[in-house]
């Protein structure tokens, strides 16, 4: 079966290319906003991966449009480099967490130039309203005994 044999199919291919490119552009822009504005280091990395996904969609769309394997091969290498990047970057994130106890990108603003001003957090409301509304399961069976470690266990994520 030949995909681009008739003009109708070629027009379909053009529309598919444009729609897929728009999807890729939206994913890329979302990742850009996330990496610019979020302060959690891991969420920043997730946003970078989202940008990579947008690029992958665009590459495969062009590959389909031109009937060429180049985009597919490039996406395979993007996957490879993303895996390497995630491994090395997560090691650095863990080291940063071990030093500061926070996953906050702003914890490292002491590395800025001396002439730059320090960015200060906005005022936060004191109470965390989200914590009160977590669903609770009906207790079943015997309640476990409270030990000294119980306050250390997290109730939710």
């Amino acid at each position: 079966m030949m995909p681009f044999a008739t003009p109708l199919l070629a027009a379909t291919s053009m529309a598919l290319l444009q729609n897929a490119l728009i999807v890729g552009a939206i994913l890329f822009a979302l990742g850009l906003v996330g990496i610019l504005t979020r302060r959690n280091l891991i969420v920043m990395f997730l946003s970078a991966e989202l940008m990579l996904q947008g690029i992958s969609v665009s590459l495969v769309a062009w590959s389909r449009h031109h009937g060429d394997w180049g985009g597919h091969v490039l996406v395979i290498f993007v996957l490879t480099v993303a895996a390497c990047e995630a491994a090395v970057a997560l090691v650095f994130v863990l080291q940063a967490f071990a030093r500061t106890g926070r996953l906050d990108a702003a914890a490292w603003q002491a590395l800025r130039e001396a002439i730059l001003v320090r960015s200060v957090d906005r005022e936060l409301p004191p109470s965390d309203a989200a914590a009160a509304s977590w669903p609770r399961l009906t207790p079943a069976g015997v309640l476990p005994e409270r030990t000294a470690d119980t306050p250390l266990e997290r109730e939710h994520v």
Partner: protein
Amino acid sequence: MSPALPALSPGLILAGAVTAAATSLWLLLPRGSESRAARWLGLLLGAAALAGFVATGRRLGGLGEESVFLVVSLVAIVSGAATIVTRSPVYSAIWFALALAGVAGVLLVLGAQFLGVATIVVYAGAILVMFLFVLMLAQPSGLAPYDRVSSEPLLSAVAGAILLGLLTLAIGRLSTEPSICCAVPSRSAAVSGTVPVEPSANEAAAVVADPLANDQVARLGAELFGRHLLAVEVAGVLLLVALIGAIAVVSRGEAALEEDRRTAIGRASR
């Protein structure tokens, strides 16, 4: 574009969609002080932006292909947006897994079967689990204060919207330039120097990346390990270097931390 809105020009729809997207992202991003009404307004504006982008897109040929593409791309975009606006980073990672599922669906619609499966296996199976592992190691319980605020949400939402608007404009102009469409000869044929003046049907079918071919993965493998063999070798070396580098950084970093702790204790006892 959309027959239901004949009075609105595509440019106007695009501008409205981009503005709605920026406002909705700004309303949904963690800003420290959110009201429930602002979030609902953000969700409504986001839905309006999505509808605008659907109206900007072009009709595909078949009804089945079109509806499948619509569903998987909406899944990808909505979960991608949820990835960056969710407060809890664990939920963020899980939304990202759903976005990966949507992207894999888009890749499947585009005919990249191997890449769709590889995205699920490599990203959702390996990379995302690594992210979750680090999150569980490092995340304090409850919501950290730095997850409840973001730095300059308005400026970044506007920057993303401007980028998106420009990209969509450029993509929309593709259809008016026929020189881009369909006339480019396949690179593999051009490189091997065997560009025929009048390719027979057999040769053309061999060159084109036919998404419906049974041996699509075999052809991709032949391309990957034929023309790109050297790049595959380099990628293997890169994986090895990343592995060794990660282990080296971990061990040296722990040694440095131990050293810091010991000097701190010594200073305190002295």
